[in-house]
């Protein structure tokens, strides 16, 4: 039986790695999760046959309670609320790692100092992830509205962290586990997780959740060493490192560094200038932009004079054909002043063989933006500046514009960070749903084409 159990864990670990690998490409992502799911099922079922186990009734009840609650909540939650559910489930995993460590500490039978140290470290990390994730959940769910900040917070948090470390060290060095110290250790670790997450703003939460996700993975791996369970060690470590990298990628996509996300919130204020544009420009690379468009349902391309200058219209046509072939609905939004004279753009596009029935003018297309997955802006600027609609102080206020900012995602191809024809800062470029693809129009469209072809 022992061998069958070990082989099952081996298979599970392999399926996890395979599943994650498949999940990292949009083409195979869907069956990736199925592979990983099979791995989980195998590992869970075989664990019932571990030798020397008791409390089967408690165990099945606990699985049933936790599983049903999670299944129900996971099915019910709206797509927009997904991030906080991930935070919640991740926190549960961290809490479980902490609970494993607590049981082991209460039993107090460790083979060596090393295992004891790993158990304490896993408990610390898992508990931090648990309480931190719950705070993240509460914030995104709207239960905690404002970031909680006070003077000397960083110092205070560090102090709490050091207390947790000290208590953990006491457990390891003394090797004698009185309930009091164990309790205080967990309390300090949980408090640190909470205080760490409290000051972070809602917009940065996905990055923080990803960080806690990586931490939970690490905690699981450490407890895996303690329990001598290879599946836990491998799966936990893989998630720990993949999660760390993913956290960095996410921070980069938001144009922030991780340190910035975690610590910059201290002392910043939310003052809003009357005419200053909020936020920052967030870059994207062509591969990501291409994938985003290839898997969209509706794409609207907004060409401006910049496209014509870059001689990109033939490439744009090629991109449209590729997207149509993938079943993406592609439309062109033509602003009255796109190009150098009315109708200029239509001609330019017709010349590049873009069918006429794909071109829509301002009044026809504007109602369609909210249902659009990706709006691709090529060489257009003022004609998509939402300030014309929203900011009475703007020099271009009142100008009819294409409401690209209402699309779910906006990709702007632009040479650099300069201002538009009117010299007005474009609020669209700073939008949360906007990503900037910097470069020459023709070259960038070429790269988008390559990205779509590579799928």
């Amino acid at each position, binding site marked *: 039986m022992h061998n069958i159990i070990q082989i099952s864990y081996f298979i599970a670990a392999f399926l*996890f790695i395979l*599943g*994650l690998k498949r*999940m*990292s*490409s949009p083409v195979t*992502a869907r069956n990736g*999760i199925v592979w*990983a*799911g099979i791995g*989980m099922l195998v590992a*869970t079922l075989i*664990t019932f046959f*571990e030798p020397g*186990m*008791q*409390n089967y009734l408690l165990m099945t009840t606990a*699985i049933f*309670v936790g599983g*049903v*609650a*999670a299944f129900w909540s996971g099915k019910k*939650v709206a*797509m927009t609320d*997904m991030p906080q559910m*991930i935070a*919640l*489930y*991740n926190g*549960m*995993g961290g809490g*479980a790692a902490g*609970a*494993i460590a607590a*049981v082991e500490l*209460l*039993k107090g039978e460790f083979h060596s100092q090393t295992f004891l140290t790993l158990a304490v470290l896993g408990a610390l990390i898992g508990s931090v992830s648990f309480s931190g994730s719950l705070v993240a959940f509460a914030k995104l769910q709207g239960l905690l509205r404002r970031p909680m900040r006070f003077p000397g917070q960083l110092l205070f948090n560090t102090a709490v962290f050091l207390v947790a470390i000290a208590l953990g060290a006491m457990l390891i060095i003394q090797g004698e586990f009185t309930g009091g110290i164990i309790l205080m250790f967990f309390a300090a670790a949980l408090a640190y997780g909470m205080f760490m997450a409290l000051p972070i703003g809602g917009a940065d939460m*996905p990055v923080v*959740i990803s960080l806690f996700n990586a931490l939970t993975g690490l905690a*699981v*791996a450490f*407890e895996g060493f303690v*329990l001598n369970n*290879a*599946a*836990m*060690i491998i799966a936990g470590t893989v*998630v720990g*490192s*993949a*999660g*760390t*990298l*993913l956290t960095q*990628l996410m921070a980069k996509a938001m144009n922030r560094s991780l340190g910035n996300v975690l610590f910059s919130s201290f002392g910043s204020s939310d003052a809003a200038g009357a005419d200053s544009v909020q936020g920052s420009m967030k870059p994207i690379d062509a*591969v*990501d932009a291409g*994938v985003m468009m290839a*898997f969209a349902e509706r794409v609207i391309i907004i060409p401006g004079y910049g496209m014509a200058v870059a001689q990109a219209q033939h490439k744009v046509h090629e991109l449209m054909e590729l997207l149509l072939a993938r*079943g993406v609905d592609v439309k062109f939004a033509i602003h009255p002043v796109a190009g150098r004279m009315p109708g200029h753009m239509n001609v330019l596009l017709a010349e590049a063989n873009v069918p006429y029935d794909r071109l829509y003018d301002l009044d026809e297309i504007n109602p369609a933006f909210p249902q659009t997955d990706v709006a691709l802006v090529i060489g257009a600027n003022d004609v998509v500046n939402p300030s014309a609609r929203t900011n009475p102080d703007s020099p271009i206020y009142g100008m009819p514009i294409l409401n690209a900012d209402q699309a779910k995602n906006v990709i702007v191809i632009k040479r650099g960070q300069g201002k538009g024809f009117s010299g007005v800062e474009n609020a669209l470029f700073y939008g949360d749903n906007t990503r900037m693809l910097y470069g020459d129009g023709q070259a960038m469209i070429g790269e988008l084409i390559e990205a779509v072809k590579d799928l």
Partner: protein
Amino acid sequence: MIEGMTALYIFMLAAVAGYEIIGRVPVILHTPLMSGSNFVHGIVLVGAMVALGQASGPLEQVVGFIGVALAAGNAVGGYVVTERMLEMFKSSKGSK
């Protein structure tokens, strides 16, 4: 028993594997992938079951019970949410 250097080797290789897997993942997959890896560390369920299975005395049993329930939530919830998110990739691809 996985001891000493062997443990370190496993840790190192698994860490490299995780890093390589994520490599060049497009931004639109960040959230599903985070969710997927969140599901994978639901393997903590296995450990929680062992901990509860070997628990003796009411305090250990209560803590173990909480651990198993939380871990089951991690695994099941992680799977359901990831599956739903990735479902969207199918629909947008299949509609010709």
